[in-house]
């Protein structure tokens, strides 16, 4: 249902363009044959409903049309860029969790302590800083002043594993900090909530050792909903790295989408937007499934 709506909306993107999208894309110098070929290939000469059905029908089979610019299929373009974006998103999520879990837990277990105040400041800063500015600052410090890491670019893992890692670190941190801050706040609040739960007192009254109370009665309960938040953050990271990818010249989907915007290459933009929405829906579905497996309250009822 939502998917159908998403597809309609993505489809209509091209029709909301002021003027003739193909003319806009091709610029001023093109031959009539190129124009006609593109027009026919994109199905823009058909009536609207028929256009949508053709487009949707093709999209289901993985055919998202061809780029107005290069003439390559959109699917191929996306497939080429997807691994880089996936790598970056997963690396950023790792960074986020490495920051968020210890910081969130420590600050919940020691409220008002130094760690707690530090975590609050860091996470507030983290959600308020534009990721692209953070990227520039990281480049300034680590690539410029210190000269430890390259300022951008991409090499494949198989070619140069060290270079791959070196180029991954800064963009992963730049994107991971934002998610990390959101997750830190979440971990802190849900742990605090779990700590105050009545059943924790029951466990204490049984004489169960503190460590065991913390792992089984506080953390387990506090971290269950983390699955949902992590899923949402992964979805955000996959799509939210657009600007960071551009700053670090990371050849991912974000950069592809941005180039498509610059070039007015609407089929590519459509494809990218559709894919991101799809990813969002799929991740949400997976999170729901996973959650129902690990939370007895849902799986048994």
């Amino acid at each position, binding site marked *: 249902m939502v998917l159908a709506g998403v597809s309609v909306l993505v489809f209509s993107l091209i029709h909301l363009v002021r003027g003739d999208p193909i003319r806009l894309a091709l610029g001023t110098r093109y031959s009539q044959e190129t124009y006609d070929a593109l027009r026919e290939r994109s199905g823009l000469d058909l009536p609207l409903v028929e256009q949508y059905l053709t487009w949707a029908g093709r999209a289901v089979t993985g055919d998202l049309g061809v780029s107005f610019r290069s003439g390559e299929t959109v699917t191929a373009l996306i497939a080429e860029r997807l691994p880089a974006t996936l790598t970056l998103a997963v690396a950023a999520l790792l960074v986020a969790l490495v920051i968020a879990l210890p910081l969130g837990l420590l600050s919940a277990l020691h409220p008002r302590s130094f760690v707690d105040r530090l975590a609050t400041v860091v996470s507030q800063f983290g959600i308020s800083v534009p990721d692209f500015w953070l990227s520039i600052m990281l480049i300034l410090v680590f690539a410029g002043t210190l000269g430890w890491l390259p300022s951008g670019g991409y090499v494949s893992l198989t070619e140069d594993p060290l270079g791959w890692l070196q180029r991954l670190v800064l963009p992963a941190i730049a994107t991971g900090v934002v998610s990390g801050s959101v997750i830190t706040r979440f971990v802190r609040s849900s742990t605090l909530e779990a700590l105050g739960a009545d059943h924790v007192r*029951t466990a204490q009254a049984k004489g169960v050792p503190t460590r065991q109370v913390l792992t089984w009665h506080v953390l387990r309960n506090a971290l269950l909903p983390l699955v949902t938040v992590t899923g949402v953050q992964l979805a955000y990271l996959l799509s939210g790295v657009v600007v960071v990818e551009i700053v670090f010249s990371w050849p991912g989907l974000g950069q592809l989408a941005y180039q498509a915007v610059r070039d007015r290459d609407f089929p590519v933009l459509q494809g990218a937007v559709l894919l991101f929405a799809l990813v969002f829906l799929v991740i949400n579905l997976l999170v729901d499934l996973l959650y129902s497996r690990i939370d007895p*309250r849902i799986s048994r009822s």
Partner: protein
Amino acid sequence: MTSLSKAPQPAAGPVLEVEDLRVRLRTPRGTAHVVNGLGYSVGPGETVAVVGESGSGKSVSVLALLGLLPPRTATVSGRALLHGEDLLTMSPERLRQVRGPGVGMVFQDPMTSLNPVLSVGRQLTEGLRAHGHVSKAAARARAVELLGEVGLPDPGRAVDRFPHELSGGMRQRVVIAIALANSPSLLIADEATTALDVTVQAQILDLVERLQTEHGTGVVWITHDLGVVAGIADRVLVMYGGRCVEDGTVDDVLERPAHPYTRGLLGALPDLAADDGGDLATIAGTPPPPTDLPAGCVFWPRCPVRGDARCETEQPPLAPVKGSHYRDKGTSGVPGEGQYRDEGTSGVPHRAATWCAEGSGS
């Protein structure tokens, strides 16, 4: 492990002796004096019922015994000796050992007292295995047995269930089973059977009674239910404003209440009950907020009697009630005078914190 983990206890001396227990809580509205100098003792096999309105400090006073109040906001002072050992100054590890085999606690709200994401069996065996080397299989077998004892149908299957799959009454029985798991020498029950129907309640009360005779378990029973008080309690302690305003044997307190508050609770005071035909007793007003206790008697603002001018400025001490002679004894409040002379038949003094003489119904 120490002697505490091994029940039964020899019947020497009281199980629990609480002296001058005081609890203050830091709240956004200032310091709350929730418990103010509470003292009582529980002998082996004895049941003390604690009654009083919501907010009288009953629950907090027992949570304080086990160190279950938030340490950041709560200040506890006084003494609470469990077999002569002070619970309030115990090392955390020793306190952990005592929780369970020393003191078992049943909590008020069955809906929130169990961990929703762990199975019932897991929550039971956890307590068993925290106090001695018990194999998983043995702990599980004991868990099934315990669930059977508290009257849970089909305990073999119930052990693998999760709390949300059980009804409120069944959950309450699980909470009780958890408290009884290590055969504690003291059982504290906070509104333990309020959620249960009469048959199950009777079953639980029988179980507790058996524990008392077999292990000499002392019981502190916090309740609103006078039926339970009359049925199981040996002694009654009436709390108001964080103090004990009256205590004594069940017969003394229920039959011959001396404090106006107790009489109000029991609906025995004609002034209070008259309008409702002696049926439903309500005392006008609400308990004083613990952040702002009155200077004199805690009950003064609501007291329908106000028989003595001192009540407004001084807190009457807890002193023996002298039956029908009480009216004539102007000196009964003086400390040291005849504290234990007028003891009831059970050897337990009947005491009340009041100076008023009017309306003693006996």
